């Protein structure tokens, strides 16, 4: 049974496609040496960001990770200012001073991507505390990878969130690799038992199926919004690319067969096939959508490439708020 209707499904597809095409452009910018630094691609994991953010309101909060473009876009960021940030341009979300790993978009409730694994778990939990104190019914969703399960702050914050019944949803994206190491080498016991040890409800779902992500996230968000406290969601997913754009030779830590089997379970493919089968959309709809989104992405890239760098005076700005 699905409660997600056709137009919602199409909106989720569009949102995932936007991330996919954005990320493909990022890879292109990197390989053509137009982008400084690095980027950690989210391709293959789009179902999690889109499913969860579709369950959130505009004024709800998220915190994100080094692999954060998907969360940012799914929460409503615009493509042109994101590309501009990735290229270090003044028109970027952070005036070029944050880059790929630190995009924050306060207007959409995005409190920032974070380059410290688990570094934003406190921030998300604190945003939830703040919502409770201010008497709003806002919810905070905290995205992190399974690698963050190695950091103590996750458990400290879960403990306090449970004690104080905070409206926070912990979203663990298990893409199976802590950088270049399989999570089974780093993660003892059962992930499913961690949250219940704090009295936090745990729910696991298929991260490749955006609609099942949405359903589980919606339940957790509703629970948080109604004052019943935190939840922990675990989504099985897969990073189709390497740890970062430069990680192309991956045979030493995972097989081509494994990569192929997960590409077959691509979240866009899964949703498109279901929608076609359900008669919720036809091939023409998908083609039109792709053209629209591709145009948006290409215009965004063009905008960013042409945008000026920040002037030298910018380097000293915003160290302190005055």
């Amino acid at each position, binding site marked *: 049974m699905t409660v997600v209707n056709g137009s919602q499904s199409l909106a989720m597809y569009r949102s995932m496609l936007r991330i996919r095409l954005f990320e493909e452009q990022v890879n292109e910018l990197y390989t053509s040496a137009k982008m400084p630094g690095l980027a950690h691609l989210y391709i293959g994991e789009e179902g999690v960001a889109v499913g969860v953010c579709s369950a959130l309101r505009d004024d709800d*909060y998220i*915190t994100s990770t080094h692999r954060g473009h998907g969360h940012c876009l799914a929460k409503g960021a615009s493509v042109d200012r994101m590309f501009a940030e990735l290229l270090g341009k003044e028109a*970027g*979300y*952070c*005036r*070029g*001073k*944050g880059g790929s790993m*630190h995009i*924050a978009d*306060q207007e959409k409730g995005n*409190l*920032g991507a*974070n380059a*410290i694994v688990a*570094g*934003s*778990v*406190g*921030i*998300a*939990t*604190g*945003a*939830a*505390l*703040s*919502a409770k*104190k*201010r008497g709003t019914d806002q919810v*905070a969703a905290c995205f992190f990878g399974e690698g963050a399960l190695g950091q*103590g*702050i996750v458990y*400290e*914050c879960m*403990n*306090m969130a449970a*004690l104080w019944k905070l409206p926070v949803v912990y979203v663990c994206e298990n893409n199976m690799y802590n950088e270049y190491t399989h999570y089974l080498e780093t993660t003892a016991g059962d992930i499913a038992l961690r949250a219940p040890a704090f009295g936090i409800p745990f729910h696991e779902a298929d991260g490749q199926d955006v609609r099942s992500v949405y359903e589980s996230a919606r339940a957790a968000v509703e629970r948080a919004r109604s004052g019943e406290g935190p939840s922990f969601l675990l989504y099985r997913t897969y990073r189709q690319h390497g740890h970062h754009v430069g990680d192309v030779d991956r045979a030493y830590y995972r097989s081509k067969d494994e990569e192929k089997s997960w590409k077959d379970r691509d979240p866009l493919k899964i949703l498109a096939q279901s929608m076609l089968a359900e008669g919720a959309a036809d091939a023409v709809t998908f083609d039109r959508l792709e053209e629209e989104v591709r145009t948006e992405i290409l215009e965004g890239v063009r905008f960013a490439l042409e945008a000026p760098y920040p002037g030298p005076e910018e380097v000293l*700005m*915003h*160290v*302190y*708020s*005055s």
Partner: protein
Amino acid sequence: MSRLARHEPAVAERRLSMAEAVREALAQEMRRDDRVFVMGEDVAEAGTPFKVLSGLVQEFGPERVMDTPISEPGFTGIGLGAALTGMRPVVDIMFGDFLFLALDQIANQAAKVHYMSGGKLKAPIVIRTTMGATRRSAAQHSQSLHALVSHIPGLKVALPSTPYDAKGLMKTAIRDDNPVVIFEDKMMYTVKGPVPEDDYTIPFGQADVKRSGEDITLVATSSMVYVALAAADLLAKEGISAEVIDPRTTVPLDVETLVGSAMKTGHAIVIDEGYQSYGVTAEIASVISDGAFYQLDAPVKRMGAMDVPIPFSPALEDLTVPTAEKVAELAVKLCRKGS
């Protein structure tokens, strides 16, 4: 400590301890602004081990004076998240030594979020913590780690040396839109001094000249202000007139007052309870040397805590911090060299 009275405003007649002054600042700010709240270990009914916060929970309730688990990284991060979303938390880190536990949240997150977001996110969080040795608390409860946070751009750092300053600096910290770390010397909580009941703030980056003098400048922070003042008394008997200056904040630093004084006296010693090497004394000495080089008659000297883990035994611990006698001895040597 009565000799400090002459430096305080004449209107001040009430006398409060440093602990009472901090508490009054917090209570007044919490009455003024609903967004202000306190969180940390044993801050509510216990009022902290030093009883600094006693009574606050009775007035403001456990929602605004929140006891936390023993989770410094966790509750510092939670404080930061609250600060980014419209609250003004005062996070209590019981011993300065525990800053090391929370440093990612302080130095990687709070300090950088405004800059990294291109000025969009603001982190008005105050981190209250302690410093100071000679309490026989050994190496993990005695350090003065203000240099550590002073090193990180994006943080402001205050060190009150009097009850008057403790109240005024705390109020300024709470109203500041940036993360501020305040260090209170736990040996000074019972020190009394004049504190007006009214609302006043002390601007950051404004040093306080505690005693005027002509021959040597003694720059001192926190409890070392008293060491410097006692040294100045000893020096007066030797016919040496010492000027004692308390920067009150290490970030921002009142370079103008420090350099101006050294240009006038031609000699300077910087006294601070942090470890001497790579410390606050090094930075301030360098700033003075830079700014007053051609007026100096001798190299600027540093007196910090000895570069050792702070020992437990009183016989050893007392050797690790500067004393008035040692400061005076060095000052005499410096001043007599040229003459």
